[in-house]
């Protein structure tokens, strides 16, 4: 399923799939004809209870992503390890703690699993997804996020664009800085559970700013991708 010009979701058919939790990932290993192997981790985008699906962004010099985005076709097989992770997960466990999700680019993928779980479980937990993208065309799951926010069940989606905002846009159009966080994040007194996912530099800056705003470091869980 094509999400944007650079991003594709692949639904995987894994026999004996044990189910997964929102926020977990899988390790994908590709083996070339000459035996060369490359392995990468991808967050699961699908809700727990649905078949595993990964959303992959094609990276310029990627070893694995160009194949997965451009070439993989229905019926292709590759090695998979997972689901993995119990640290960067959110379970709809009845907790009323507000949920703050901050995504840089394809860092939104694990948060789709979380917001889909939230929808499936009927949770009304106050949730804010702050999603930073380069342009409108780079927003993954755009329509679905609009639909989820339109349910007005406690989920708010706040977009910011760092390279080019859409015509007539009245929202944020800059990198996520401390002022933007101060305006969008739940105040520290509400003690939200915070998850930040994206490129390493994005995650570092956001986490540091959240702590500077008074959020407890132990309440902030991060998942950094490699690269800038």
């Amino acid at each position, binding site marked *: 399923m094509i999400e944007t010009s650079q991003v594709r979701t692949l639904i995987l058919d894994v026999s004996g799939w044990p189910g997964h939790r929102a926020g977990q*990932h*899988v*390790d994908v290993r590709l083996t070339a004809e000459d035996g060369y192997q490359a392995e990468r*981790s991808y967050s699961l985008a699908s809700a727990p209870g649905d078949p595993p699906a990964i959303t992959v962004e094609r990276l310029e010099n990627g070893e694995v992503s160009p194949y997965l985005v451009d070439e993989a076709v229905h019926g292709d097989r590759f090695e998979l*390890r*997972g689901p*993995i*992770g*119990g*640290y*960067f997960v959110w379970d709809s466990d009845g907790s009323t703690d507000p949920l703050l999700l901050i995504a840089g680019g394809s860092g939104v993928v694990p948060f789709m699993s979380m917001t889909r779980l939230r929808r499936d479980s009927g949770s009304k937990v106050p949730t804010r997804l702050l999603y930073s993208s380069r342009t409108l065309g780079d927003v993954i799951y755009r329509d679905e996020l609009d639909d989820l926010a339109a349910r007005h069940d406690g989920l708010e989606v706040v977009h910011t664009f760092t390279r080019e905002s859409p015509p007539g846009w009245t929202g944020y159009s800059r990198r996520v800085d401390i002022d933007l966080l101060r305006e969008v994040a739940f105040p520290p007194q509400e003690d939200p559970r915070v998850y930040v996912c994206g490129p*390493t*530099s994005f995650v570092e800056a956001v986490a540091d700013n959240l702590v500077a705003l008074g959020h407890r470091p132990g309440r902030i*869980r*991060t*998942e*950094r*991708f*490699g*690269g*800038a």
Partner: protein
Amino acid sequence: MVHLDGNSIGGVLQSVFGRDLTVAVGVCGGCRAERPVGAMHVYRGAGIVVRCPDCDMVLMRVVESPQRMWIDLQGVATMQIDAD
């Protein structure tokens, strides 16, 4: 060099220890900081190096080859995890 989080090696650790170790809470042998493995800093080069985010001490090293894996946990003073 950029670092990742401990959850990025969750799969590697699971293949060694047979269970998810990212939720185990480790104590740094250097500065005694306590945090889940998932929150430790991971550097990937030829091998994997896990460092304490507070004092930068090397907590773990993992080197994989097709036949063997080497694991060095010298930097971790103690680790605790829920009983299975």
